[in-house]
């Protein structure tokens, strides 16, 4: 979120070198401009997850729902074994990573690649950015449950 705020500020400060001073002042006051409007398109991607609560037993409804998401949006790059295809296999991922870290890799990868050393290391290894697969936070939470299930949790 920090990154996004910075971008928005920078843009509103330096809006349109070609508009009049009055217009520039209006823009600085935060009136909508085409630039802001174009950037502020709603996208589910990009809000930082700060904490999530895990509980046992696993929510099997979430596991089932996440299986469908996995097949369409994750399977192409992540196997359920420890085999790396495009990205790392998911076996033991919940033991290697904090759930919040995984959530942010799924839903907020721009921030992670900017700030997180582990995420940056992975990009160097895989050379393909973890894509935005248009997965909501709720869906990402279900995927965590699916990964825990894959790692043998009950």
């Amino acid at each position: 979120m920090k990154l996004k705020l910075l971008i928005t500020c920078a843009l509103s400060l330096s809006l349109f070198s070609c508009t009049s001073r009055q217009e520039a002042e209006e823009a600085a006051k935060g009136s909508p401009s085409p630039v802001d409007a174009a950037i502020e398109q709603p996208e589910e991607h990009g809000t930082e997850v700060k904490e999530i609560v895990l509980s046992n037993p696993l929510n099997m409804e979430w596991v089932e729902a996440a299986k469908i998401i996995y097949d369409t949006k994750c399977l192409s790059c992540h196997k359920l074994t420890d085999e790396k295809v495009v990205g790392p296999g998911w076996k033991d991922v919940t033991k290697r990573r904090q759930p919040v870290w995984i959530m942010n890799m799924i839903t907020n990868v721009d921030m992670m690649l900017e700030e997180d050393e582990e995420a940056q290391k992975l990009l160097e290894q895989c050379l393909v950015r973890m894509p935005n697969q248009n997965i909501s936070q709720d869906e990402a939470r279900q995927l965590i449950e699916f990964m825990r299930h894959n790692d043998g949790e009950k």
Partner: protein
Amino acid sequence: MNYATLPLFLVALHGCAPKNPTQAITGDAAEKVYVAPGKHDEFYNIVSGGFSGQVTVYGLPSGRLFRQIPVFSQNPESGWGYSEETKPMLMTSHGFAPWDDSHHIALSTTNGEHDGKWAFVNGNNTPRIARISLKTFRTEEIIEIPNASGNHSSPFLTENSEYAIAGTRFSFPLDYTGANTDVAINSYKENFKGTVSFVAINKETGNMNIAFQLLLPGINFDLSRGGRGPSRDWFFFSCYNTEQANTLLEVNASQKDKDFIMAVNWKKCEEYVKAGKGKMLGVKYAHNTYSEETHSATSTIIKEVLTLDPKELKDLIYFMPCPKSPHGCDVDPTGKYIVGSGKLAAIIPVFSFDKIIKAIGDKNFEGEYDGIPVLKYDAVLHGEVKKPGLGPLHTEFDGKGFAYTSFFVSSEIVKWDIEKLTVVDRVPTYYSIGHLCIPGGPTVKPHGKYVIAYNKITKDRYLPTGPELTQSAQLYDISGEKMKLLLDFPTIGEPHYAEAIPATLVAPNSLKIFKIENNKHAYVTKSEKDARVVREGNKIHVYMTSMRSHFVPDNIEGIRLGDEVYFHVTNLEQDWDVPHGFAVKGAGNAELLIMPGETATLKWVPDRVGVQAIYCTDFCSALHQEMQGYARVSPAGSSTPLKWSTGETPEAGLPAASK
């Protein structure tokens, strides 16, 4: 003097042209059009592509080209008109028509103001209207116009986009069922007719259908505009060739001192339709729609059209005399004035809507033309702009009481006061302007700021590229009293009419991806698990997925010579701006460019035995060059088993990703 130098010469005669083009630029021009790297333009400029058959999208004030939207012409870059899904969009009653001549843009309006939903564009040659979504910037619908030839006075809209208009430029022997069409060309006066069609637009979906069609005298219907405000129930058309010539129109259609502006009361038409006064005629026309959910188009042939005959049904239309072969026919933002631009006239007549209504009420007619009442010129005239320039074509408005008219022959834009009918400013254009555009110019609330000239002749404006040059547009600042030239920018195809709309009305709604969950394509593959190859007789269907950076399957065997192979490629990406391409060696059609979440199909008919490469044509990732595979083609009748896989190699023994 040859034709091309004529405009230059005339500009010079007028004494308003600078000695060389660069003199026309004022000091702050660069600053006014500079949009810094990473910044966005203030307006979208949606521009007709003329003989390219497409529509192009530019940013203003920078003049940067963003996109060419395929509409009436095939486009191998994206597979438009080549992919199995999009071929039906180019179907017509004449069969597959993969080209047209697109002339005029009409952006949808609500209460006469831009609403940012759709752009409409006409196909002039094989009469059609297309609707483009401003959410996807894709053509969603194309409707053919029956009983029409040369759909030029189109697709202009009524104030609330109730209707798009289609009027025949060329009258001809109408070809409805049972009509005698095999007639001598010189029997024009007897056998040739024109029509104007009102194409209803669904407020929610934008879907079009031909509500009714007016049967009209055999003359040429050139351009048109819907009324607004007080004149909202009316539509106005310029008409020429009231001489009804069928040859050498250059001379023979320029005989009369005055032709017509036709005023149509479309509300009255609706009443007659409701009252069952219309007559159904048998015709044949195509209606093609593209679905964002199935990512596929369907083409339907429709076989009848409802017609109204103004000779029998009174009070529908009136003719107003207008000097000398009028071209542009433009309504000012208040809806009170209609400007006719006689191509050969030395004045610009401005008609008053109030006076038109009064003259109709008073039956102040000078006679009839083919059964249609002709109003008296003096009775409907607000006034004439005297000696404005040579060859007036089109007029746009700034919403501040001024009109801006393009002059082809004298190659200039002339600004004039609508109430006072006086010229207040003029600027040269380079060269021979046709249409012009002010952002929101044809709406009740013009956004003003700029006027753009779309020129017919380019000559020396850019580095030469042989005999065929780019097309030329110019941007002028109209925020002050005097118009100021800011920028030249090249365009694709000959630009005819264009509209410009504030980015704020369009950009926030621009779609980023197609949600894979909503993909209802008949051959979608939503998971690599479902990727497969299916044989149905001699048809092979490949259910394929693409993801950075591999296809599943990427090895296919068991295709035989004589098979037709359909690659149905689903892009599983859900990230903005990550399309994948698909190409196969020897494909006789095109490639595919598949947006995130979309499915597209390429038909491939192998012509030889061997192993052919497939690959992704859109650089998608660092491993894009690895995004490739092979299709093996065996001889006809061979017993090579049908097999497919990705990641299955004898050496590495990696587990197969498919099965």
